[in-house]
């Protein structure tokens, strides 16, 4: 890695004051240190947030919203009784990702900012518009098995690799951030962005802002939900396609439905019109295909990843079935429910 200046800010204000374009916040470090070793991330300074107080709480407010501090580790969040009781979808998605070791290190805030697994992004000896804008995107007609089929641009076809974020998207979480001008709340759907012609930017977070918490609004998703992840081995692999479903059923009819896809786009992929198709309906399997069609409208493959369109269609239907049947996918039992 490149030499850097290391600091431990004593509080959030100091952290924000010290944050420049060339600085990085250090949380769990699982992705940042990784990328620094690959010479992909070259921060001039690291602001170590790991000792800051007040960012490690998990609590429920009066309206039933769950607030998870940015420095809560993925492991602690997934094991937290409030998360497990009210948002098991989030716990399941977290546990479907990475490994026990990585989840013990990775923070909720850091996971939001996880960067793509695109092979070219990681390889400093190849062109990549995300790593070095203007150099090109060899993935488009190169090796693109893990790449996006939705929301791509001519400049970038990378995917967002997080499992956690897919669940947060389905749960319509809000990312709470703090910057020089105070606190800002960013809806999950607005937090990650599509590559467009600035693929170097993954999120709408300002360079001087820091994530302080994730808030999940109250929802009755304790029973009908699932996180279904399909990958190239049965554990410890990034998703080829994943589907998070949060469903409210009232008297046999779907009163609310949220579906987000992972592994298919530069951000967790949601299409509200697709969700609306089933609202008010009984969860009949015949209708699931229409939801998939709408979610995947405009999907295109780049060769190796052509299969993702068909696979996502099948996975969406299955995940809807699992959620409706209150049979969420276990991350331990590998047989698909």
């Amino acid at each position, binding site marked *: 890695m490149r*030499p850097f200046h290391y600091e431990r800010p004593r509080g959030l204000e100091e952290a924000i004051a010290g944050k420049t374009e060339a600085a990085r916040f250090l949380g769990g*470090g699982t992705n940042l*240190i*990784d990328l620094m070793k690959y010479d992909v991330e070259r921060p001039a300074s690291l602001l170590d947030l790991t000792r800051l107080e007040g960012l490690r709480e998990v609590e429920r407010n009066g309206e039933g919203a769950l607030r998870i501090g940015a420095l809560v580790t993925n492991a602690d969040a997934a094991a937290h009784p409030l998360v497990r009781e009210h948002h098991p979808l989030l716990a399941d998605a977290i546990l479907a990702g990475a*490994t*026990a*070791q990585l989840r013990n290190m990775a923070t909720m805030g850091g996971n939001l900012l996880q960067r793509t697994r695109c092979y070219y992004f990681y390889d400093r000896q190849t062109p990549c518009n995300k790593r070095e804008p203007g150099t090109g995107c060899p993935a488009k007609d190169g090796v693109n098995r893990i790449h996006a089929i939705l929301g791509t641009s001519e400049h970038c076809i990378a995917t967002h690799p997080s499992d956690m974020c897919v669940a947060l998207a389905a749960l319509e979480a809000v990312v709470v951030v703090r910057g020089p001008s105070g606190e800002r709340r960013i809806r999950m759907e607005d937090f990650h962005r599509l590559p467009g012609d600035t693929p170097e930017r993954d999120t709408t977070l300002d360079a001087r802002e820091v994530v302080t918490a994730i808030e999940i609004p109250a929802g009755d998703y304790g029973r009908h939900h699932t996180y279904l992840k399909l990958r190239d081995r*049965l554990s*410890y692999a990034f998703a080829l396609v994943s589907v998070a479903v949060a469903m409210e059923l009232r008297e046999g009819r779907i009163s609310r439905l949220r579906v987000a896809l992972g592994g298919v786009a530069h951000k967790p992929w949601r299409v509200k019109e697709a969700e609306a198709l089933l609202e008010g309906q009984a969860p009949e399997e015949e209708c699931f295909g229409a939801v998939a069609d709408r979610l995947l409208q405009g999907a295109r493959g780049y060769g190796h990843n052509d299969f993702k369109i068909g696979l996502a269609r099948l996975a969406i239907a299955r995940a809807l079935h699992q959620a409706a049947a209150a049979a969420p996918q276990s991350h331990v039992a*590998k047989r698909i429910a």
Partner: protein
Amino acid sequence: MPDDLSPRGPETVALSLTVNGTSHSLHIPVWTTLLDLLREGLGLTGSKKGCDHGQCGACTVILDGKRVNSCLVLAASRDGSEVRTVEGLASPDGALHPLQEAFIKHDAFQCGYCTPGQLCSGVALLEEGHTRTEEEIREWMSGNLCRCGAYPNILAAILEVARKEGRA
């Protein structure tokens, strides 16, 4: 990404660390990972570098009670922490940890390179209580790759200890 143009050396930082019960006061280059510090700085070469990127688990140590990939831990950020490595699993009198014994009995390794990581991970796994079923052990040990393919034997070793301790 702004490129740093002037070649230069790293900053150094002071650090206290307790490793396997022994406390160390150190002065290290700030870019040192916990793994490199253990291996090159303290000569504790039991923890292994298999990928240096958190992809294999060979460097797994128990840091403040939790298993982590030491290759991704910036040592400077863990001032005051306690680390337990494979060298610290046996008791000071040389008696092996039950999991070490079980690894030998069940031939849970071949080349032995992933073994320190498997053991630290397994010891933490037992403490976490993720040993209720074979499936659970397999999933929660999946962060430790073994290229020799000793997985069924590692499972048998963990299961035996878990049963003895009433955790399975």
